[in-house]
């Protein structure tokens, strides 16, 4: 305990007592309880400080308006239903988008699918062109082909060669294959 020369509480202990008397030692507390001088000193300081607070309060304005609080949003059944509907709609939309994106991604990620499709298209186109070619070459119906002699078109080539030998075969016999037909050596 720090007492001054007259065995009273010093300024430090008076302030400590003002802040919290229980922080003082037992001896200092006992002295404060018994000594009217020290108690008076402490009470005076305390009064001054709280008086200061009171004066500050008196010199302060008062709030002019009342606090306005925001309304809390209440979710009724309609609100919940609406939220549920909105959430479902959003989920469905998200699913559709997901499917579309996945579909595109799937096809882009697997080029053989597109290759298969392209090959199929080529085959179909080729078949179509063959049909067109047949029609161009044999425009007449089958009935008229016999009359026009077109039905004999598919006679064996060897038989034709036998009946009408090719001209270059004759030439090759005399010049040992050195003669060209159409700029091409025969052997």
């Amino acid at each position, binding site marked *: 305990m720090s007492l001054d020369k007259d065995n009273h509480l010093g300024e430090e202990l008076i302030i400590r007592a003002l802040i919290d008397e229980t922080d003082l030692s037992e001896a200092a507390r006992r002295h404060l309880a018994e000594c009217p001088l020290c108690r008076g000193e402490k009470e005076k300081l305390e009064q001054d400080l709280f008086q*200061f*607070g009171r004066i500050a309060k008196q010199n302060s304005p008062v709030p002019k308006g009342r*606090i306005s609080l925001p309304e809390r949003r209440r979710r009724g059944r309609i609100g919940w239903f609406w939220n549920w509907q909105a959430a479902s709609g959003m989920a469905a939309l998200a699913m559709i988008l997901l499917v579309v994106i996945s579909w595109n991604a799937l096809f882009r990620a697997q080029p053989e699918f597109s290759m298969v499709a392209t090959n199929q298209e080529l085959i179909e186109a080729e078949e179509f062109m063959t049909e067109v070619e047949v029609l161009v070459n044999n425009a007449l119906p089958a009935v008229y082909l016999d009359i026009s002699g077109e039905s004999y078109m598919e006679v064996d080539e060897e038989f034709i060669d036998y009946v009408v030998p090719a001209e270059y075969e004759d030439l090759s016999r005399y010049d040992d294959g050195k003669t060209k037909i159409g700029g091409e050596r025969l052997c």
Partner: protein
Amino acid sequence: MTHQDQRPQKTGAREPASHIASLVERASGGEKGAFDQLVDMFQGDIFRMVYYRTRSPMDAEDITQDVFVQAYKNVSRLHSPKQFKSWLFSIAVNKVRDFHRKGKFRALFGLYTEGDEERDPPGEGGNDENALDIMTRKDFWRGVGGLLDKLSTMEREVFILRFMDDLGIREIAEVLKKQESTVKTHLYRALEKFRREPSMRELLREERG
């Protein structure tokens, strides 16, 4: 005549803690009426607390409004209803800090000067207030400002909370989120400086006179 003479004010300090706690519990459950009662109890305290730190009634009005709106929105998160007052003051302390931070930021870019801080224009307190009252009040706050400027930020905060806002040591510790021993240390240093300051006694003498 002082501002306080004009209108009586309720203060939460006079209400029993159990009553406040019960209102807080009801407010947490969504009962707006209960929160309205809490506003009635603490609006004056919070307004003054902000005014002490801003010295502008208009800013104090705005900040007090923000404090209660934030408290209203978050009251359900308050775990201990008994700590409502400390919690409310801690919101207010943070709002005041934000206010000063924004002020410094504006001042940095020349959007706001120190002169703008005056704060409390004549006649702000009411039409029935005469010029002498206004001058007396301004002198008082100038003196208070001079005294408080001699304290560090923490000493000043603790001192104002204890002797102007009437909070106990434990409440101050809760508001500032510090240990009680830390609060006591700051308060001790503040009181030491204050006691040696003759201007405080002069200020009190003038007011008493």
